[in-house]
């Protein structure tokens, strides 16, 4: 069985893809949920072997095309291909137009605190937590296993 090293993946997100601490942890959680063939592509990328997986494709769209022609970051492109596999229409809509909308203006620390305080106050009053929409952050520190098809079959049989 192969493994994606947790620390190496975290460092890749932080240093190569330029993501924040929280975004990197959320993405580790997402990588853990990917099918094995996608995990394998990510393993090759973080081990600096993109040349092995550049032709990995979904619906005729290759990883190399997304990285070289569409200027996407490598793992961002893997996530896009996974999305394209499940929801091709929505993934194409993102590529056609949505990706060119600007991200919202970042909040200042004062604004963040103001929102945090208001949400805390509401949580105490209502007993409800509104933060459930967000992807969890993976702080487990555990490596991500990649099963072969046969290993996966065995796991399913044992279940």
């Amino acid at each position: 069985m192969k493994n994606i090293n947790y620390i190496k993946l975290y460092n890749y997100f932080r240093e190569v893809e330029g993501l924040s601490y929280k975004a990197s942890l959320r993405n580790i959680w997402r990588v853990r949920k990917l099918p094995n063939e996608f995990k394998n592509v990510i393993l090759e990328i973080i081990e600096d072997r993109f040349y092995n997986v550049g032709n990995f494709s979904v619906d005729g769209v290759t990883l190399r095309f997304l990285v070289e022609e569409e200027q996407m970051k490598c793992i961002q492109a893997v996530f896009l291909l996974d999305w394209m596999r499940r929801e091709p229409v929505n993934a194409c809509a993102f590529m056609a137009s949505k990706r060119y909308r600007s991200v919202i203006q970042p909040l200042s620390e004062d604004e963040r605190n103001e929102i945090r305080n208001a949400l805390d106050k509401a949580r105490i009053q209502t007993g409800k937590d509104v933060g459930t929409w967000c992807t969890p952050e993976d702080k487990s520190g555990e490596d991500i296993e990649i099963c072969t098809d046969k290993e996966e079959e065995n796991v399913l049989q044992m279940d």
Partner: protein
Amino acid sequence: MGIFALLKRTAHWVGEKLRDGVATLVDCTLEVCQDLAEATATVCERAREKIRRWMPRVQPDEVVIYPDVENANRPLIEPVVRMIKQHFPSGIKGTVENLTEEGRVKKISELVPIIATSMGIELSPDLEFYVPEDMEQMYRSCGAYNWVEHKLKLNLAMIVHDAPELYIEQVSTIVHELVHARQRLAVEDWINGKSVERYGYTEEYVQILADNFNNYITPDENPEAYSKQPVESETFWVESQIKSQIN
């Protein structure tokens, strides 16, 4: 000649270059617009090809949104579509083809307060135009809403051309950014203890928006999660509803 050197002959802008690699133009005279259109003709054609390449496979109405958001936004769609259609009586394509570069800019400038009013935004944001510094980025940024200054900023390079696909993107960008403006105003009202009823939102949904502003997901992190987070799924839903009716 580089785009900035070219524009320097005729344009006035705020500062030499702003920190995000853009210049914010103060005036959009015919000469400025013509210079920009000429300098970006090739890259504009590439952007149109990109849109055509991805767009034919797209069907609207597959955006996932929060259950009560549709009810909040449904009453906005019809008046906004009607106002846009009135503003472009011969259709966006027909209008764009028959205007000068400067006329296209003027037409879109007039649209901002019209859509803002239709969306219940009492004070329409000021409008500014900018030009990305890097030619490769020329069509990778449509516009943005700055809530500190309450300003809507639009990429001028996507407006000056006789390119309906790009012009429609900019009309959609206005809708998109004004929905963000509305979300922000609702969050501010909620923080200040005011009712959010006039936005059609529930208080719980405004809290979700507030939490999302604090935990925003960028497309660089994950394209799917970016598109499906509450603040963006709502804006994309409204945008797609309107776009499918004006296109």
